[in-house]
C-alpha cells in the first residue's frame, strides 16, 4: 500500500480547539505565599516547603517576564511589585521583573503518585491582583492551599526575555500580492 495506513481526519482551522479540549483535566497543586505559610498548612512538610520555595525562586529568575524599563514592569504588575533582575542587557542596561508573590508545587496530598505539577513561581498582575498567575500569564488560583488547578498551568514556564523590537520580518511579503507566499 502506498498511502498512510490511517489518518484521523486532520483539521486545519480547528487544531487549537481539539488540543485544548484534550487538555482540560485538573491537577492537584499546593500554592503558598512563602515557606512559613506552607509549613503551617496541614500535611505539608517543612523541608519540602523550603525545597519547593528555593526551586521556584531559581525558576523565577529564568521565567519571570523581563522588562528593560521599570515603568513598563510597573504598568503590568503595580508600583511596588517590580525588582531588578540579576542580569543585564548586552549594552549594559538594567533588566526588571515582577517580584515573586507565591509559588506552586506538586502536592503530597494528591494520592502518593508522582505529581505532574512543575514547581514554579507565581505572580499577581496589576489588573487582576486577586489572582496568582504563572510566568506565562496563566491564571492559577485566587487562594493559597492545596487545591485543583487546570492542567495547562502546571507545566514548567518558558524562558522569558525582553523584546526590543518587533516587525523585522515580513517586509518582502508586504510588497507582494499573491495569495500564498509559498510555492
Amino acid at each position, binding site marked *: 500500500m*502506498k498511502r498512510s495506513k490511517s489518518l484521523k481526519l486532520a*483539521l*486545519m482551522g480547528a487544531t487549537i480547539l481539539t488540543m485544548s479540549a484534550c487538555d482540560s483535566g485538573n491537577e492537584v497543586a499546593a500554592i503558598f505565599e512563602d515557606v512559613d505559610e506552607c509549613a503551617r498548612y496541614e500535611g505539608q512538610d517543612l523541608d519540602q516547603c523550603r525545597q519547593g520555595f528555593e526551586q521556584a525562586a531559581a525558576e523565577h529568575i529564568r521565567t519571570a517576564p523581563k522588562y528593560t524599563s521599570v515603568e513598563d514592569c510597573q504598568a503590568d504588575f503595580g508600583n511596588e511589585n517590580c525588582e531588578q533582575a540579576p542580569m543585564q542587557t548586552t549594552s549594559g542596561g538594567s533588566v526588571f521583573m515582577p517580584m515573586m508573590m507565591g509559588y506552586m508545587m506538586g502536592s503530597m496530598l494528591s494520592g502518593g503518585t508522582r505529581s505532574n505539577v512543575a514547581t514554579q513561581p507565581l505572580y499577581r498582575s496589576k489588573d487582576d491582583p486577586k489572582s496568582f498567575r504563572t510566568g506565562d500569564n496563566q491564571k492559577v488560583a485566587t487562594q493559597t492551599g492545596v487545591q485543583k488547578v487546570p492542567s495547562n498551568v502546571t507545566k514548567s514556564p518558558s*524562558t522569558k526575555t525582553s*523584546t526590543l523590537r518587533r516587525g523585522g520580518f*515580513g517586509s518582502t*511579503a508586504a510588497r507582494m500580492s499573491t495569495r*500564498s507566499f509559498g*510555492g
Partner: protein
Amino acid sequence: MHRIRIEERPNWQQLAKEVGFHFHTIDGERYWDESACYRFTLDQIENHIEDPTAELEHMCFQVVDRVVQDEALLQKLAIPHSYWDYVRQSWQNREKNLYGRMDFSYDGQSPAKLLEYNADTPTSLYESAAFQWVWMEQAMEQGLIPPDCDQFNSIHEALIGAFANMNLQSPLHVASSQGSLEDEGTVLYLEECATQAGLQTHFIHMEEIGIDEKGRLTDLQDNVIHTLFKLYPWEWMMQEEFGKAMPTSGTTFIEPAWKSILSNKGLLPLLWEMFEGHPNLLPAYFANDPKAHMVGDTFVRKPLLSREGANVSIHRAGESLENVEGPYGAEGMIVQALHPLPVFEGNHTVIGSWLVASQPCGIGIREDNSAITKDSSRFVPHVIRD
C-alpha cells in the same frame, strides 16, 4: 496515466468547512476539483516518479555539497555574502530538513522531467496529504471509484514520523505571513502533525516575531523562539531587518538554511552541469552563461527566486509566447529547455512529488488552463489502479 471524470462527493464542501479547508474555492474559482481524478499504474508511480525523486534528491545533495564550498557559486545563486558561512554551517552540521516538493512534467510514458524544486516553502500540502487521502477513502465507500484503489500518499504519516525524529526542542514555533489564509492553513496542518508527534506548538505571524537584546528571536509572550518552522522564503528573510540576527540567534530553523540552495532556480543549471543528459533533467543554463544558447530556441526563462510562476516566460524561435508578470528577476535568471506540460482534456498538468525528510512519499496534481502553472491552478486527486 489517465484523467477520468467522476462524480463529486455530495457533501464535500460541508466536510471541507468542518475541517477548516477554506481555500478550496478561491475568488469564486474552484481550487479543489474532484470532478476528475488521475489514474496511474503502480509501475508509473514507483518507476517514473518515486525512484527518480529519490535519485534527484541524492543529486541535489551533491549540488549543495559543491555550492557551500564554492564562493563563486554562492555568488551566482545571489545568496548574500553575509550568509555564506551560515548556509555552509547549516549543511555541515547536517541540520535536518522537513519537506519539499519537486515539480515534474510527466505524461505517463516518457521520463518525468524536473521543472523545479520547491524545497523551502512548498504549499498545497494539506490537500495532498490529508484531503486527497480522505477523498479516496470516501469515494471508494460511496462507490464513486472502484473499491480497490490505492494512492501514492503517505505524506501525513511521514510528517508525523519526521517531527518525532527531528529531536526538536518543544515548543515548536510555527510562523506564516499575515494575510494569507492558505499559508496559515498549511502551518495549522503542520501543527497538527507536530502535535501528533508529541510536540507542543505555538503559532506566530512572521511580522510579530521580536528580537531581544541578545539577538534572540521572541514570540508575543516574550518567550525565546528556540525552534521555528517558517513558511516564509529564506531569501526574503536574508534581505529583511532581522535577517542578520538569524546566524547568531540560536534558533533552529525549519527548513534549514541550506535549503536556500535547492529552492533557487540556479539549482537547475547546476544539476545539468553535473549530471548532463540525466533522463529526468532538462538542459538548463544561467541566462548570462555563454553556453546558454545551447538550450535551443524553445525555452523557458525563470528568475532565480520566483514563486507561483511569476516572471516566468516561454520563448519559441525568438518570440516570447507566454509571460506571467511579477516582481522577481532582478537577482538573475536561468533558461531551461521547454518541455511542455502534458495536456489532458485541455488541462496542463503538473505533478508535485513530495519528499518528507528527503524520502519520496506522495504526489499532488495541479492543473492549469495555461502552460505555466500559477496560483490559479486547480488541485485534482489521483489514484493508483493497475
